[in-house]
C-alpha cells in the first residue's frame, strides 16, 4: 500500500539563518523543494515583513517564488496577541476579530490549514467556525508538549468540533509530544552550563523510565541540592512527557497537518529523542494524507558552541521520513498479505 503522506517544511526550521540574514525566504523554499519537501508552512509574523498589511502584489510575488521551485504553501501559523495592551486583555470580540484577520489572510495566501496556538479558548474558536467554513480553512489547535492528545484541554476542542459536526476545526499535533528519549543536545547544553554528568545521567535515566517528573525535580532540587543548571534540566522534564503514539491513529480524522518537531538528527539520519519509529506506522495505517512538516528547534540548544546548519538537519529528517514511510508501507502490505 502506497501511503499518501506528504512532506514539507515549516519556515520555523530556518529561524537561525533567517534571523541572521544568512538565508532568504527563497533560499529556504529552494532547499526544501530540492529534498522533496515542497510543502511550505509559513509564519506570516516571521516571514512577511509587511504583516498584517500584505498586499495582493506581495502575495502574487510569494506565489511566483513558490512556483519557481515547484513548491506550495501547506499551513499558516497564526498568533493571537491577547496581551497587546498592557492595561487589559483582548475582549472576546477582539480575539475573534484577530482570528478572522488571520483566516482571511490565510485564504488570500491560498492556504487551507491554520495552526491555532494552544492557548486559544475553544469557545472563541467556536465563534470562528463559520468564517473558517466559508473560507475553507481548517483550524487545527496545536497539540504541543506538555499537553497531549488526550489532555482535557484538547478534548474540549474535539468536543466542539464533534458538536458542530464541522471539518474546519480540529487539532494539529506537534511531534514534540512523543519524546521517548531525552534529547542529547539538551543534556549537552545543561552540561556546558554546569550540570554534573552524574546528575545528568540520573535525570536522563528517570526520563527513560518515565518516572513522574515531579519526583525527579524533587530529587534533584531538594535531595541532591542540585545546582542551577541541574534543577533547570530536571524542570525541563515538566515540558517533555512522552505521549502514547498509538493515539495518533485514533485522532487522525481531526488533523490534516503535523508539525514534525525535532531537536537533532544524527549523521545516520535518526532522531535520538522523538518516537517517529512508532508514529509514522500509525499515520500510514490510518491512511492519513496530510503533510509532515519539519519543525527544527535545535538551534537554541547548540548555537552557543557551533554554527547552526538547519538545512542539513532538515535534510536528515526527510531521509528518515522516506525510510520510515517505506518501511511502514511494506510492513502493512506484509501484514495484509
Amino acid at each position, binding site marked *: 500500500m502506497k501511503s499518501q503522506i506528504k512532506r514539507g517544511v515549516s519556515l520555523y526550521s530556518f*529561524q537561525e539563518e533567517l534571523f541572521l540574514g544568512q538565508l532568504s525566504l527563497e533560499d529556504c523554499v529552494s532547499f526544501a523543494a530540492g529534498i522533496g519537501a515542497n510543502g511550505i508552512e509559513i509564519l506570516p509574523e516571521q516571514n512577511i515583513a509587511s504583516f498584517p498589511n500584505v498586499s495582493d502584489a506581495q502575495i502574487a510575488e510569494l506565489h511566483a517564488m513558490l512556483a519557481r521551485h515547484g513548491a506550495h504553501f501547506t499551513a499558516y501559523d497564526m498568533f493571537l496577541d491577547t496581551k497587546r495592551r*498592557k492595561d487589559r486583555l483582548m475582549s472576546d470580540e477582539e480575539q475573534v476579530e484577530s482570528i478572522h484577520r488571520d483566516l482571511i489572510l490565510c485564504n488570500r495566501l491560498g492556504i487551507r490549514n491554520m495552526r491555532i496556538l494552544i492557548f486559544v479558548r475553544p469557545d472563541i474558536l467556536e465563534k470562528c467556525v463559520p468564517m473558517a467554513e466559508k473560507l475553507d480553512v481548517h483550524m487545527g489547535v496545536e497539540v504541543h508538549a506538555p499537553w497531549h492528545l488526550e489532555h482535557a484541554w484538547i478534548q474540549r476542542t474535539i468536543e466542539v468540533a464533534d458538536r458542530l459536526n464541522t471539518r474546519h476545526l480540529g487539532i494539529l499535533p506537534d511531534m514534540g509530544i512523543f519524546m521517548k528519549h531525552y534529547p542529547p543536545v539538551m543534556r549537552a547544553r545543561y552540561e556546558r552550563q554546569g550540570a554534573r554528568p552524574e546528575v545528568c545521567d540520573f535525570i536522563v535515566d528517570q526520563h527513560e523510565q518515565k518516572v513522574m517528573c515531579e519526583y525527579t525535580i524533587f530529587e534533584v532540587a531538594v535531595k541532591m541540592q542540585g545546582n542551577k543548571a541541574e534543577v533547570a534540566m530536571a524542570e525541563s522534564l515538566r515540558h517533555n512527557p512522552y505521549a502514547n503514539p498509538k493515539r495518533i491513529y485514533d485522532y487522525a480524522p481531526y488533523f490534516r497537518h503535523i508539525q514534525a518537531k525535532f531537536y537533532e538528527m544524527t549523521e545516520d539520519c535518526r532522531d535520538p529523542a522523538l518516537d517517529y519509529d512508532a508514529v509514522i506506522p500509525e499515520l500510514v495505517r490510518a491512511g492519513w494524507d496530510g503533510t509532515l512538516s519539519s519543525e527544527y528547534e535545535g538551534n537554541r540548544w547548540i548555537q552557543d558552541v557551533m554554527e547552526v546548519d538547519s538545512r542539513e538537519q532538515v535534510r536528515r529528517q526527510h531521509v528518515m521520513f522516506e525510510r520510515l514511510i517505506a518501511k511502514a508501507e511494506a510492513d502493512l502490505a506484509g501484514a495484509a498479505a
Partner: protein
Amino acid sequence: MFDKYTIDPASLANVGPADAPTGFAFTTKLGYYRGLGLSMVEDLKVSLDGEAFPREAITFDDGNGALSLDEMETAYDRRWVFGAPATVTVALPGGFPAGEHKLALQQRLRISYMPFPSFNNDEKVVSL
C-alpha cells in the same frame, strides 16, 4: 532564543555633536522567533559595566521614528519586524566612555501565551 545576537557590537556609535556627544547608540534585533507589536516590548534595559540607565534615557527607533519606552507601550500600529535591526539610543552626556566597557541589554517582552515575560539578555565588551 537569539539572546547572544541581540547586541550588534559593530554598530556602536556616539550621537549628537562630535565634540560634545549627547549619548550613544547601537542596533539590536528582537530576540524572538517572530515579529512583535511594539506595545508588547515592555522594556529595553541597558547597562554599562553593571550600572543600569534610567528608563527615560532610552529611545527606540525601528526606522519609522524614535519613541520613548513609554510611547512604545501604546504604539499599537507598529511592529518590530523579525530579524530587522532597530536603533537603541542612550542619553549620556559625553557619549560612550573611552576604552572597553561591558554593555548589556535586556529585552522584556509580553508574550500573550506565556504567563511570565520573555527575557532576552545579551552582554558584550565593546568600545568605540
